[in-house]
């Protein structure tokens, strides 16, 4: 019906463009920001080719670099999927950082002190993961309960909860009564012990030359599940209904309050899982600053995706590889990694500003 109403004089490419404005605007924002990044590289006096080569080498130049980029993308994607899930119910979950943090705490605690490493059938790494998911979920649900009961803006609540959780990690590795490793010698850092071998996420290739771990297939399966839930189930429809019109949803018998809490719980579960992947898949021990701002990167990925799981995957790959390449750019070409941060900031700001234009188009589409 829509295509019929389009004036036929419009060229093909313009039709294609107007049909998916969000996609094109997002792409334009990303490409524009990358161009600004290149411009900055020039201004910094670094030959663009050198920088680009260093970038490519760091992002996908070797099996290891590739795997490291993918692992990072995995974390962003998990947080992003959680974000998109909650967003379906019109909830903005900016608490990914905190959910990663509590997930990390829970995974560490269970892996180290939960007597799980001798359990059969991979339970050794499954249980800490589940604990992380649960902890992240509860952390998210807390914001949901505040929203449902007291009408607290979930953005403010999840943000504050993030700060609290980040300092909880700091606190928990400061004290031996909590998760700090026993002080055996003078340089014993405020970190937890390394989690036992059996509680780590098994490597897919078996060695570290390409350290993809089991979190990746788990994440992919979950991504498919979430995409299914969002688009093909009653639950997904309920989420959408609550997000689009809570009053009508309530009238139609949907429990709006529990949906809100549930959505933020689910978002938190993904944050917690991201924490588990970071801890059990890569870092192996909990340290202050463990979450490394990945929760905020995941948030950006979620925002970029505009509600689609495919979008999350694309965005997380973009940022995962961007960051990996950025690190190498600094080592090889001397371009500060802060450049990547600038690019990220630009992308968010441009997309936020373009939202009205994109949504307006959507409205007329209906």
């Amino acid at each position, binding site marked *: *019906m829509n295509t019929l109403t389009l004036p036929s004089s419009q060229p093909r490419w313009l039709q294609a463009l107007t049909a998916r404005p969000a996609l094109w605007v997002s792409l334009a924002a990303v490409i524009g920001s990358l161009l600004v990044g290149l411009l900055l590289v020039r201004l910094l006096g670094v030959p663009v080719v050198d920088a680009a080569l260093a970038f490519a080498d760091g992002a996908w130049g070797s099996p290891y670099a590739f795997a490291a980029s993918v692992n990072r993308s995995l974390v962003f994607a998990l947080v992003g999927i959680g974000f998109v899930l909650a967003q379906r119910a019109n909830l903005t979950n900016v608490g990914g950082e905190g959910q990663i943090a509590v997930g990390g705490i829970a995974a560490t605690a269970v892996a180290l002190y939960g007597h799980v490493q001798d359990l059969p059938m991979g339970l050794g790494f499954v249980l800490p993961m589940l604990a992380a998911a649960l902890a992240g979920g509860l952390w998210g649900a807390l914001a949901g309960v505040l929203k449902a009961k007291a009408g607290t803006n979930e953005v403010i609540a999840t943000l504050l909860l993030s700060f609290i959780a980040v300092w909880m990690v700091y606190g928990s590795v400061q004290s031996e009564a909590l998760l700090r490793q026993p002080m055996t010698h003078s340089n014993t850092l405020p970190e937890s012990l390394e989690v036992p071998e059996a509680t780590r996420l098994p490597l897919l290739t078996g060695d570290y030359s390409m350290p993809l771990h089991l979190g990746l297939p788990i994440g992919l399966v979950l991504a498919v599940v979430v995409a*299914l839930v969002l688009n*093909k*189930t*009653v639950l*997904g*429809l*309920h989420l*959408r*209904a609550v997000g*689009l*019109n809570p*009053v*009508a*949803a*309530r*009238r*139609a*018998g*949907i*429990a709006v309050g529990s949906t809100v809490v549930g959505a933020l719980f689910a978002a938190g579960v993904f944050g917690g899982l991201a924490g588990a992947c970071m801890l059990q898949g890569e870092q192996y021990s909990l340290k202050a600053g463990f979450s490394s701002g990945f929760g905020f990167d995941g948030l950006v990925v979620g925002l970029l995706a505009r509600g689609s799981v495919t979008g999350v995957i694309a965005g997380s790959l973009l940022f995962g590889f961007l960051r990996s390449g950025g690190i190498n750019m600094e080592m090889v070409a001397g371009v500060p990694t802060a450049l990547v941060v600038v690019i990220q900031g630009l992308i968010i700001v441009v997309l936020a500003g373009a939202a009205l234009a994109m949504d307006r188009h959507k409205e007329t*589409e*209906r």
Partner: protein
Amino acid sequence: MSVWPAAVEPDSATPSSAPASAGALLCLQGMGKRFGAFRALGDVSLAIAPGEIHCLLGENGAGKSTLCNLIFGVYQPDEGVMTFDGQPYKPTGPADALARHVAMVHQHFSLVPDLSVVDNLLLGQSRGVLKRGECADRIADLSRRFGLALDPRARIQDLSVGERQRVEIVKCLMRDPRLLVLDEPTAVLLPDEIAALLGVCRRVADEGCGVMLVTHKLAEIRQVAERATVLRGGRVAARSEQPGQELDELVRAMIQRDLADTSATPESRAASARPMASVPGVDAIRTGRVPEPALMADGLSVVDADGVKRLDRFTLIVRPGETVAVAGVEGNGQSELAAVLSGMRPATEGRFFINGQEMTGRAPREITRAGAGIVPEDRHAVGCITGLPVAENLFLDRLQRFRRWGLLDRRAMREQALELMQRFDVRAASPDVGFGGLSGGNQQKAVLARELTLDGLRFLLAAQPTRGLDVGAVQAVYGHIQQACDKGVGVLLISSELDELIRVADRVVVLYRGRVMGECPAEPAQRDRIGAWMAGHEA
């Protein structure tokens, strides 16, 4: 100069003349306003002289507020010209209007609830340091001149509705208005407050200010109006130079039907606010001799956040197979009644039963389960989710039915939706188009389709089900309601369309200011009584 609208010929019974433009304060010529494709106003001309109280009448949606907003600069006209004091007048915003001493009291209050009266009066009127004392003195002065008592230090949120209205008026008066526009200022006031307000209007006019008063209430017109203009569908339907004597003609022009005797004595007035026990048949129900009523409402009251009683001890029984209509001018408690019965808002007091089960304070879901179909008054806000496709909206409350292996069986949903759309003549390109893309009538038919196909339907609440629908759609809607009725469903129909509810319903109860004014069989012969009750004529 001809200012008669081309399309509408003046009713021969309405003695009226072209508005005098000589010496007019405000003169409108051929004003038109569109909202998208919708023409809210077309070719409206009128004039207001200094010292004149000019009443603007019209049904809901006739365009009264839109016209006021054009004068006040909130909207800009698409066509037509205005002159003020003989000068061209083209306000681009309220600021322009205020600069020309045009002031307006809006239909909905525009006060800042957590500020004091003084601060509200000073907002936009003062620069630099606030001179609250000076302002309080002026308030006192105005209070004396116009008899409007106000405590300058009181906070708006602590004031009654009437007091707030007074603040709005004083706000206008502070600006030394030359033209005062009042959009339904009396809709929320108590009788003595109305009298006081009309007195103020009189005095303001006596000081040489032009007054434009929007109202639905005939008594007010009789009391103060010097001239009146009736809008209908955005066009001038009639004018009157002595509205006090031509009330009937005005009303006829407004609703295009007769309201012969507005002072008829209602015999069943006593029906209002009676206790449950006095409703005939209650004992029989309690003792199980008669089938459970579809709805039994026992003394339902609703008090809103401002402490105003919106619904006052509403008591009613709807039997299976019976259609009871709730008539009344909008805003007299119908919305609150619907909200309570659909579980969207708790009643302040009273109880109600659906199909014999007590549903007081239950969630909407439980009310649906008890067999109550609800066609809400505001279909956009409550009845549907415009962002979802038609099929999803058709089955919003029973999505579980389409679960197959945990996934949503869209195919089955689509098929059943198509079937339902055919049965209820919902016209859309496909079940997958967005609900918001349907025309108003088709949206309404879709909502009806959903509610009428509810499992175990015993009671149907249809609030304003035909609002905004074309003639064919209206027929279809009432056809469906009639069918449901025939199958033994009890129907409560809330409507302000007198003709239709008389045609469809078995009984009519009339709400006025939240109270049941009277009850009578829905027969054409009762129309006058019903009309009188709707206008608040008790005796």
